[in-house]
């Protein structure tokens, strides 16, 4: 069963065609990597999936439901969560408060003037679970804005996970990280995928990370889908090598 089905999606900005007639299916439990040179339209593509703006044409289906015209927060409510290339967190709140807001919204309490003790306990449990999952449980009372970059990334992922999403979108999760931090985040994503069975789509520049993690890889170039396949297939694909890997090497 496919969690995400994208059919012939195009996005124009004036004369620029940022995404051109792309189709893609992501199966339940799959980890899909999207790669491509700078300006290939990867982040625009992500923005279309998560509802930043609607596509010029084409359709997007999530869990069998047409979400092409839904607002971002509605897609999130249906079970889609994402992180950003530049970490988006609540810098002046501590780690626990950051994740608690996500857990409360996911619990359906966002408009509530109060929550009772059992609801509070439920939120608290989810926050603890999530913090443990990303190994931030010892830093729960630290201000997120004061954490190291890698920990901020982990906190952002924790906020996404607290939503219990059916689909996790990660935009360059290792951007701006050193080797050690990259390794830790890669291990985290691997655990989420292998042990917790999350369906994940990620954009990534670091080829080691991509080949280590991805079940399947989609290559975008100049807004078009250039190729799709397993890591071996993509590594052996000559068009991809010419357009992307060749340039990078």
């Amino acid at each position, binding site marked *: 069963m496919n969690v995400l089905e994208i059919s012939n999606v195009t996005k124009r900005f004036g004369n620029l065609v940022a995404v051109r007639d792309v189709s893609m299916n992501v199966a339940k439990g799959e980890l899909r990597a999207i790669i491509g040179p700078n300006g290939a339209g990867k982040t625009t593509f992500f923005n279309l999936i998560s509802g930043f703006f609607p596509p010029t044409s084409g359709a997007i289906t999530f869990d069998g439901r047409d979400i092409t015209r839904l607002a971002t*927060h509605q897609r*999130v*409510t249906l079970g889609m969560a994402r992180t950003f290339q530049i970490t*988006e967190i609540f810098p002046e709140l501590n780690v626990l408060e950051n994740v608690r807001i996500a857990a409360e*919204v996911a619990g359906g309490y966002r*408009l509530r*003037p109060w929550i009772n003790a059992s609801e509070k306990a439920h939120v608290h449990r989810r926050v603890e679970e999530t913090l443990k999952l990303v190994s931030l449980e010892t830093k729960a009372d630290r201000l997120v804005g004061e954490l190291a970059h890698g920990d901020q990334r982990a906190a952002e992922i924790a*906020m996404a996970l607290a939503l219990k999403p059916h689909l996790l979108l990660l935009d360059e999760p290792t951007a701006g990280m050193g080797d050690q931090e990259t390794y830790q985040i890669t291990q985290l994503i691997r655990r989420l995928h292998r042990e917790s069975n999350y369906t994940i789509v990620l954009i990534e520049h670091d080829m080691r990370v991509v080949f280590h993690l991805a079940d399947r890889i989609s290559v975008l170039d100049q807004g078009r889908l250039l190729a799709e396949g397993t890591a071996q297939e993509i590594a052996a694909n000559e068009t991809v090598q010419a357009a992307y890997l060749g340039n990078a090497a």
Partner: protein
Amino acid sequence: MSAEQTRKLIVLAAIWLILLLAPYWMVPLGGYTALATRVLVLGLAAMSVNFLLGFTGVLSFGHAAYFGLGAYGAGLTLKFLAPSTPLALVAGMLLGGICGAILGTLIVRRRGVYFAMVTIAFGQVFYYIAFQWSSLTGGDDGLRGFSRQPIDFGVFNLDILSNANNFYFFVLFCFALAVAAMGFILRSPFGRTMIAIRENERRSRFLGIPVERHIWIAFTLSCFFMGFAGALYALVNNFADPRGLHYSQSGDFVMMAVMGGMRSFWGPLLGAAVFVILQDYLSSITVNWMSFVGLLFVMVVLFFPRGLLGVIGRSKA
């Protein structure tokens, strides 16, 4: 109980003790009870502005409109409808809050400077209505011919008209109700979504919060509090003034909030106290009192960017 919680409880107890005893320590210090009453009312207004500015992160520069509407709502009720102080307060609160709720729908999609500009524009609309509609509002002269009424508790009458201390404690009671409601909301899951929006709108949206709807609710709530403060102000003066709706009055409220510390819950009350007491003292010496208040404001912003109370501690979510 942690040391942090104990400290907070002590601070809270101290604040309420100072407020409860204000009539007794202000007079020996050269003040007068009515001044303390003004501080409470304008402090409540500044806290209402800050409910939006400090805790949702959107700057309304037209909040005096809802303050003024509250004042006219209370005044008109006392003058034309019924000589009842509680009814006047409810009417003022409803008038400010409902107008805020309606205009809020048109405002909440704007951000930053545009939000501020649109709030000024709508605020000025109300100012000119109050200014021009002389037959109802008294126009430039303001609305006169009403006064706060004694409160009938059945067994006894509370005289809040001629007894300044009684009136102070009545206003303090109203202030406590409003502030308790504010604090309660800010500690709720909804209140935490307000803080989330202040901290990072994009992240909030991607957590599934419909940001515009939540800003609208916060805006509306803040206008209800503002209307309530305005209604109290009409009772303080037995008078409602079109200048109470003017954007310069909005600016004063923002100044109080920023000066006191917009990230702290009590900051705006301190800001209002400094503003009102300085105004009272300086205006008896010079007509240019605003230059001095302005100078102080600039100094606070330069040296204590988080406001007078912001220096002491970070506000908790």
